[in-house]
């Protein structure tokens, strides 16, 4: 294994630790009455979250000590596991969330494969793009095999049906493609051919249309989606300073299960505009440092991986916030590190750990010599 060259980038770590800490208070407040109603124990969901948050922090530090280059060795197994999980869901999944099978139960723990699959896919396309960089312009040997992975995963998730997650994975993959120098013409054709497929799919799944129509109703001044209008009332009720930690009225009656997808609204109600500003700022710092890091990685695999991890977390945050503020239709994406979201915090933590490890390979302006040694190290896997 290569010697560690730099210290990890603290500006990546600090925002994440701050978000996790913040989430403890928010999830407790948002989940306690619901939890008490369901199990008679107001701290039940919170304890689960505390356990996962602790596990997440532990994983961040643990993974950050393992060279990300090790992932190359295991990438095929990760991809295989991801595909198997999706197939399992398809044929043996338990129907839970409104008719969609999205969860796997292992020994009492529920597990949402999509959280794992998106990172497994990212590792694979990042590797393939870096390996095929010299002939990626070749449609048959370069681009299509990479696209094949993406389409397989997206299709398997879309039929769950989980159209929004499939879309998010497709779009983030395209972003990685773009940064990974895929020919613009190829990407344009891909997008163009996906549009009719997506339209057909949407028409065959009435629930997606319902969401979109109720969203439109909302934007035209009606009361479309109940949860959404309640989430917005929650933000407004918080005002600038918020109603104070634990004082949310909305969660009691009008936003059941707000600890999940609409947790941002509880942040807004209890901590006010300054509270949401801090949360956005923390995500902003993280995204900025993550993207800056990917610029300074000499190894293409590390660079694409760093870029992909950053935009997956950043996109999730933005989508969740936009849903909660009524700017786009409901999708069911969690707010990373803040939502109760079960396994998402675990896999996001592992991803941040990988990112931190990549950050130890970044090129300092002075370290010209290092660049060469690293380039050599980075190429050694080929």
């Amino acid at each position, binding site marked *: 294994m290569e010697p560690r060259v730099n210290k990890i980038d603290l500006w990546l770590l600090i925002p994440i630790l701050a978000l996790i800490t913040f989430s403890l208070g928010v999830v407790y407040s948002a989940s306690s009455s619901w939890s008490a109603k369901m199990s008679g124990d107001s701290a039940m969901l919170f304890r689960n979250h505390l356990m996962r948050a602790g596990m997440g922090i532990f994983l961040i530090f643990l993974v950050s000590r393992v060279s990300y280059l090790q992932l190359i060795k295991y990438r095929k197994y990760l991809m295989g596991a991801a595909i198997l999980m999706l197939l399992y869901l398809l044929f043996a999944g338990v129907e839970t969330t409104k008719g969609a099978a999205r969860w796997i139960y292992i020994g009492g723990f529920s597990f949402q494969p999509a959280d794992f699959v998106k990172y497994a896919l990212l590792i694979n396309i990042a590797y393939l793009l870096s390996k095929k*960089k010299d002939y990626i312009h070749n449609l048959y040997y370069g681009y299509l095999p990479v696209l094949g992975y993406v389409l397989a995963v997206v299709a398997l998730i879309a039929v769950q049906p989980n159209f929004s997650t499939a879309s998010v994975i497709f779009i983030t993959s395209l*972003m990685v493609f*773009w*940064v*990974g*120098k895929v020919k613009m013409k190829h990407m344009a054709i891909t997008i163009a051919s996906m549009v009719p497929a997506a339209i057909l799919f949407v028409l065959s799944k009435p629930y997606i249309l319902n969401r979109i129509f109720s969203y439109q109703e909302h934007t035209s*001044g*009606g*009361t479309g*989606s*109940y*949860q959404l209008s309640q989430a*917005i*009332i*929650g*933000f*407004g*009720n*918080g*005002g*600038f300073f918020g109603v104070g930690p634990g004082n949310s*009225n*909305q969660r009691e*009656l*009008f936003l*059941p299960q707000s600890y999940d997808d609409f947790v941002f609204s509880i942040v*807004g109600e209890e901590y*006010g*505009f300054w509270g*949401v*500003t801090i949360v*956005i700022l923390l*995500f*902003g710092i993280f*995204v*900025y440092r993550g*993207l*800056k890091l*990917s*610029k300074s990685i000499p190894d293409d695999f590390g*660079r694409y991986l760093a*870029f992909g991890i950053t*935009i997956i977390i*950043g996109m999730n945050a*933005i989508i969740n*916030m*936009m849903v909660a*503020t*009524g*700017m786009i239709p409901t999708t069911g994406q969690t707010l990373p590190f803040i939502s109760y979201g079960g396994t998402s915090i675990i896999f996001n933590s592992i991803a941040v750990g990988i990112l931190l490890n990549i950050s130890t390979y970044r090129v300092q302006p002075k370290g010209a010599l290092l660049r060469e040694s690293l380039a050599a190290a980075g190429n050694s896997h080929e």
Partner: protein
Amino acid sequence: MRERTNTNIKANTERRITIFMAVFALLFLVILYKLFTIQVIDAARYQLAAKKQYESKISLKSSRGIIFDRKMNSLVSNIVMYSFAADPNMVDNKDSVAQVFADIFKKDKSYYLDKLNSKNTSFVWLERRIDPKFEAQVKDISFSGVIKLNEPNRIFNYDKLSSQIVGYTNIDNNGLSGIELELNEMLSGKEGYVVMQKDGLGRKRPAVEYPRQEPVDGNNVILTVDMNLQKIAEEELTAGVEANNSTGGKVIVMNVKTGEILAMHSINNDGSSQDKIAEITDLYEPGSTFKIVTGAAALEENMLSKFDVINTYGGEYMNIKDSHKSSSMTFQQVIEQSSNIGTIQVANRLGRERFYKYARDFGFGITTGLDLPGEVKGRLKKPVEFSPVSLNYMAIGYEVLVTALQMTNAYACVANGGMMMKPYIIKKILAPDGTLLKEYKPVEIRNVISKTTAKALTELFVGVVENGTGKDARIENIKIAGKTGTSQKMVEGKYSKSKYTSSFMGYFPAENPQIVIAVIIDAPGAGEYYGGKVSAPIFKKIAERIINLTGLHEFSAPENNADIVLTSNSKVDNTSLNLVNFDISDAIRFLNENEIPFEVEGARKNAIVVSQEQFTDEKGNRKIKLVTAGANQDDKLNKDSHVKMPELRGMSVRKCIKVMSTLGIDYKVNGCGKVTAQVPEAGTQLAKNQQVIINCDPPGKF
């Protein structure tokens, strides 16, 4: 060459990543701007919306559980009463609404106008739980913004019978006393709610994702109390308290074998709450009934037999006087004549420690654990706290504070062969659908004395009734065991010479005791004050009526019935007989056994007597006519069984409501006064949930 391409690619990639930075920054700023408009610019609007919708949460009342006696007669149940509320924002014509309400309820119009003009609220009560007599007038009320609500209300089905045990609820249906308080959580169920979502025009609008919580009805409770015995106990205690011009009294009827409370009542005319369960909350010095401790201990320790002679010092010893001036008595006579001096001699031979041990074992100074709120444990001094004369006084029931229930349970223990049972009053708890949730079984506490001792002591107590101070409790052909007690009451720190507590504790049949009855009368003021003169006769009346009514069948094992003589020879007074509210099968047995001619109109089984009248038939015989109504409550729980429409004409509205709710019939009453018409006719099979209509008119009208 390759170097150059790499650098090119790198530069290109870095540029693209920079574009992403810009895009993300822009998106974060857009979100922040959106949040700024919601949380800062439009905050006031959303805060108002939050407040409004918070207020439009409407609770769905759960139905409180029913409390039944041991034979499934519902002692208390729910009737629905109408309440009117309004949303001031939505009432169009406030003036006419106020006028209509003012006309009906005879209140000032401005009273309603003030309510209707309330600001910043979308819910005001106009009238809560209106009297059923207004129902006809309000049935057509329909104004926009005025809401008619059904509110459940508690009613006693048998004129407050057992009301102390059952207890009361407040206007929000929460238990305040008795079983209602003890089992409040079990009975109340869970309120549900709906959230009313309003759009910009104030229209209530159904939304798919409404959080709606259905109410969960409360559980039903079955008591060990027997409604018929309760009625007897309450009536006789009331009569006894009145006849003796006393300030109050207590009665407990308990099943000896199980510890079940069969009836229990207290009258508290001394200024304290009429609703308290004085049998467990009030303490008194028991006097001679406490001699049970000394008697039981002496026999159990084999210190003496009933024939042993005890020096009674000519009736005067250390400031204590006996009413008998004998110089000596047998132990049997000491108990029969209730000699204080003799008892003190025996207690001194026992000594403090042994005396204390038996008193403690009999349950004095400890709560019995009865499942009702407010029980106190009384006061039993420990031997180290005894003064030189404490033992003397405690042996005859002073310097010790007990509850009526503790005393009753001590006698029940002897009656039960020395095994003390835990008294209980909750028999079963049933879910709304009738499934058994919890059943309470008899619990043995401890063996206080041996069977032989208990038998010997019972013989002495039989002697008390046959030859001693308790003669007035005697019932022919039934062997009663009992003990009288008369104690001076403590008034302003001194033992009063005029205020007494007079009690009688008895159980029967002595050969195989089934029932223990305790009667305690406070401060009798009509001349007599000895327990044997005041309380023993009340005991006798209660015991007689219980024996006549039940034949003790249900309290004894079948093989024991042969040697129990079921009826007394005393003639039942035909004219003062009141069988209303009795279980019809009990009433029939009673009338047959007393050879009283009668006729029954309505069901002869599983029904309740709703009215009774005397009449003379064609042959000139005086007869009693009993009218019964339908099935009793266990059939109501069995949802498949249907009820027949009873004859209601001529009944008062109050009585009619009582009958309807006893039968579990959904009804609607128009008018007030006496029932003049009913739909459907009597005898019609009623469908499940069928509502019947009853028209009433004031008596003057026809």
